């Protein structure tokens, strides 16, 4: 196996996809740690999994339905109670475009 599974550049890219800013030192540290962790993950490559079905969930439940009954919704003031910045019943957010 090559010594680098993931490069610093890739770590930067993935972190930005995950919406997490990283400091320079952290990029170095995470790149080193990620390579160690991912190389451990590659242990599962020893197995022949071609014919094996994946298990997404261990409980054999499917199509869990309930009656479509109207119930009391959460009042607006409670729904946004924990929002740090709000105005007139709306949550304030930074510029999107």
């Amino acid at each position: 196996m090559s010594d680098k599974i993931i490069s610093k550049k890739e770590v930067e890219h993935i972190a930005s996809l995950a919406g997490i800013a990283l400091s320079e030192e952290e990029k170095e540290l995470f790149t080193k740690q990620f390579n160690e962790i991912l190389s451990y993950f590659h242990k599962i490559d020893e197995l022949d999994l071609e014919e094996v079905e994946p298990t997404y969930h261990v409980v054999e439940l499917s199509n869990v339905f309930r009656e479509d009954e109207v119930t009391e919704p959460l009042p607006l003031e409670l729904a946004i109670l924990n929002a740090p910045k709000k105005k007139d019943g709306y949550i304030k957010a930074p510029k999107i475009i």
Partner: protein
Amino acid sequence: MLSAREIVSRVKSGELKVTEIVESTFDRVSKTEDRLNCYVTILQEEALKRARLLDESASKGKVHGRLFGVPVAVKDNICTKGVRTTCSSRILANFKPVYNATVIERLEREGAVIIGKTNMDEFAMGVSTETSYFGPTRNPWDLTRVPGGSSGGSAAAVAAGEATVALGSDTGGSIRCPASFCSIVGLKPTYGSVSRYGLIAYANSLEQIGPMARDVYDCALLFSVIAGHDPRDSTSVNLKPKDYTVFLREEVKGVKIGVPKEFFGEGTQKVVEETVWKAVHKLEDLGAEYDTCSLPSLEYALAAYYIIAMSEASSNLARYDGLRYGYSEEFTDTDWFTYIAKVRRNGFGPEVRRRIILGTFTLSSGYYNRYYLKALKVRTLIRMDFEKAFKRFDVLAAPTMPTPPFKLGEKIENPLELYMCDIDTVPANLAGLPSISIPCGFTTSGLPVGLQLIAPPFREDLLFRVAYTFEKNTGYVKEEPEVI
């Protein structure tokens, strides 16, 4: 220290008042909490107010509830209405849920008194309770050592008498690990048997809320209260409510115990191996039969577990945006993406960031098939190996942890080394099986060792019966840590 069972009976007989019990619990908290740091939030006023209400109804002859007057500690990733629920993270340090988790409703319905919200590894990601934003919890048996994690606050509180019983959650061992390290009883229930409604999600396909207690009876009692169907959790299984304490009898004659060799791998310390084998032989003396066996796929369980857990975490923790709730910063001069990336950088600790980023990687296009899908296939092999084993055996026995509790700071700089601590606990989560950790001895320096028992789905009754028989015929639960 009184057990939950004794508290309920003494309150019912009028021998004790709930107020007295709750006050004595806070006495203990005031004596040991400075050293242990079990709680993120202590609810002294609220608990005493509730105690007075319960006493009032008791004075009118109304003592209803299987946990009437019992002081309970609740892990801080379980939502409590109006009481901050932090996940031991800066990002939720001021978060006050507007509803109760189903398990909280069930506790309250049975007369329990919530003492406080317990410390944990941030977002339940860890085995030592050292990643908490609110500082580490210490092990009551040795203050220089970790209590285990991630439900370390709950375990330390129960072991030190800062609560009678506690709720934890277990994604890859987070109830059983600290139960083992603090010498208490902890159950990871069958997936789907306890509602996850109101449990702040880390890895939904793996985690369950479960009971932690000083003995098997209290563990079974608390489980009887929290288990059961909940329409608000679509993975909740439609089970009839049961009183699990009726299964507690000293009877293991003919119980077939399998001891899989994969649980005694190279990282297992000799003292753990010997202590666990001694426990297996004790069960044999009591009438059980045992044989060794092999579940070859378990060698791959830890890698598969971390891939799945991190992948699910990356998706679950995408909700923290610093806008709808939680930690926030000024944003007058920043755009949307820069703001969110900054809030998530400052709001999450390093281990949480690592897992989110790695999970984003293992789910990303081009890598999904190489990591996530493969891990799910390994999960199938593990399930099949367990199914096969349970054709031969009633329960499986193993160490809960490969080592006794380690020192604070000993492993925290090396993530992979910490992950390795989960090696014996993750298989039960991957297969959705019930698993209990019970005290089974101490090292020569007095550090606890835990025995793990695993049963087929929904056979908690069998786990409780074997654990109860072991407990009644050994003295380990009676030991108390010196900190008390």
